[in-house]
């Protein structure tokens, strides 16, 4: 069985930042493995540990700087990784879910996985749609926002719980091959061990260009164009207490007492 896990290095913006055109100035940005993808990786590695003949392949779309993040995924137990990048992707502008799905579909065609796991969404642009878009493209079944997974490999069925709004879970059986988008909390992602980090250095991290995947620059031309970026106006009119912790706590306490709290 082969599991393809899509991972992404995401950007986190500092509390204070400046904009630089259509991006946040890089001085205020730090990069890390997408939180949702950590749970997807853990799900894949746990399936491999529970069964024989399972290979976990991580794939990312990202420039050379993303290699460190992908090595983290290898250190956590993925067997090998693929990083897709080239000049055409660098110049492609907004990599929306459809664009990413075209690239990931080409990788899936090469790899022929039985199961694809993705995070529900990425922490930076939060489209939340790449997994299902990919499933539709490659003709796989799918389930979005999976918070529990019981894989019956023999029957070729994934028994999943999907986390709906309002504290309700939907129980669904999904035929394999499938794409599952994994919600945080489904498991407890491991830290990479020192041994894992050492081993990751010798694992394969293959680079692929669009042409390696049989794609051309026009395949990543998105109809979506980002035209503006700005800080939203804050609509807040909170009474903010200032001073020492004792002083602000006292003021808040008196405001709350007026509302009948703590009496």
């Amino acid at each position, binding site marked *: 069985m082969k599991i393809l896990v899509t991972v992404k290095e995401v*950007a*986190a*913006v500092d*509390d204070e930042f400046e904009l630089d055109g*259509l991006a946040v100035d890089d001085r205020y940005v730090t990069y890390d493995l997408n939180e949702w993808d950590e749970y997807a990786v853990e799900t894949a590695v746990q399936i491999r540990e529970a069964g024989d003949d399972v290979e976990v392949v991580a794939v990312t779309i990202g420039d050379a700087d993303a290699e460190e993040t992908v090595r983290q995924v290898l250190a956590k137990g993925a067997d090998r990784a693929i990083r897709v990048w080239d000049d055409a992707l660098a110049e492609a502008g907004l990599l929306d*879910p*459809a664009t990413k799905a075209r690239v990931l579909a080409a990788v899936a065609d090469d790899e022929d996985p039985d199961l694809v796991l993705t995070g529900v969404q990425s*922490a930076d*642009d*939060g*489209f*939340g*749609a*790449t*997994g*299902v*878009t990919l499933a*539709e*493209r490659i003709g796989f*079944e*799918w*389930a*979005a926002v999976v918070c529990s997974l019981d894989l019956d490999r023999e029957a070729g069925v994934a028994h999943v*719980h*999907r986390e*709906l*709004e*309002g*504290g*309700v*879970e*939907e*129980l669904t*059986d*999904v035929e394999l091959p499938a794409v599952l988008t994994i919600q945080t909390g489904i498991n*407890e992602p491991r830290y990479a061990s020192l041994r894992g980090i050492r081993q990751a250095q010798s694992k394969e991290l293959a680079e692929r260009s669009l042409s390696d995947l049989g794609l051309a620059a026009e395949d990543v031309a998105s*109809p*979506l*164009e*980002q035209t*503006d*970026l*700005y800080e*939203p106006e*804050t*609509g807040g009119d*909170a*009474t903010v*207490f*200032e001073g020492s*912790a*004792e002083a*602000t*706590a*006292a003021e*808040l306490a008196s*405001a*709350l007492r007026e*509302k009948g709290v*703590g009496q």
Partner: protein
Amino acid sequence: MTVLAVAEHRRGELREVSLELLTVARQLADDIEGEVHAAVVGGPVKAYAERLNREGVDTVHTIAEGEEFNHDVYTQAVAQLTEAVDPAVLVMPNSVNGLDYAPAVAGRLDRPLVTDVVDLSYDDELTATRELYGSKVETTIDVHADRAAVTVRPAEWPAAEGTGDATVEAFEVDIDDAAVRSTVTGFEEVGGGDVDITDADVLVSVGRGIGEEENLDIVYDLAEALGATVSASRPLIDNGWLPKDRQVGQSGKVVTPDVYIAIGISGAVQHVAGMKGSDIIVAINDDPNAPIFDIADYGIVDDLFEVVPALTEQFE
């Protein structure tokens, strides 16, 4: 030209977001001087259609296929209806189920999809506003296509009101059963604990800013001094520090206490969706730019490890 909005329902109830989509659709239809079409798939569609017949809605399409949401059925049904109606914009909810079929419909019809949209306009082409980096910035996206699809963030638009005079039409779809490869087998309520946070008058709610599980003691101390109940945002539930039924937010419980004290909670949109109906919101956070302050009535920008014990002392 038309705008088509697809309603959402669960366990016999039309969800509120369905009526919000009608407002979005009317707004876009006004931009293009077009009609608003609504659709509902599955369940008691006639009853749902009555509720969807709001002011400004021209046609409601009912598709009687199945009782509950099944994404394989929805994908086929919505794609077929979209081809028949040919709307300039297909509007779907940015809900868990919306994200389980909207990308498939958009992909199948080769329509560009913009998700989690918080504002929209149409002037020759669609322009959508989204948030990035946990709501720290907003971005505007132009969709260079004459047909588009969007998913709309719940609770960003008011629900459509009034009673309309829409035509209600049954739409026959041709479902390919071989392509239905998922089966919904049931529903389960999470939690099962002894405390119902939706009943509490005062909630002391704690988020990622608390850092470590053992630090929760200061929160429990405050709750005890106030006679309040402790709830939490998602990361703490994911860590297993509190049971699932203590989670406030879109995927947790929606709470409306008299007072909601958010401690170390930044105020991500998913969390806010669960607590913004509280009468009084108090935020304690060391980041002055945390979005929670945008909806708070009272705020303290300071280290929670100093403020919370000081506040406890005030009530002991």
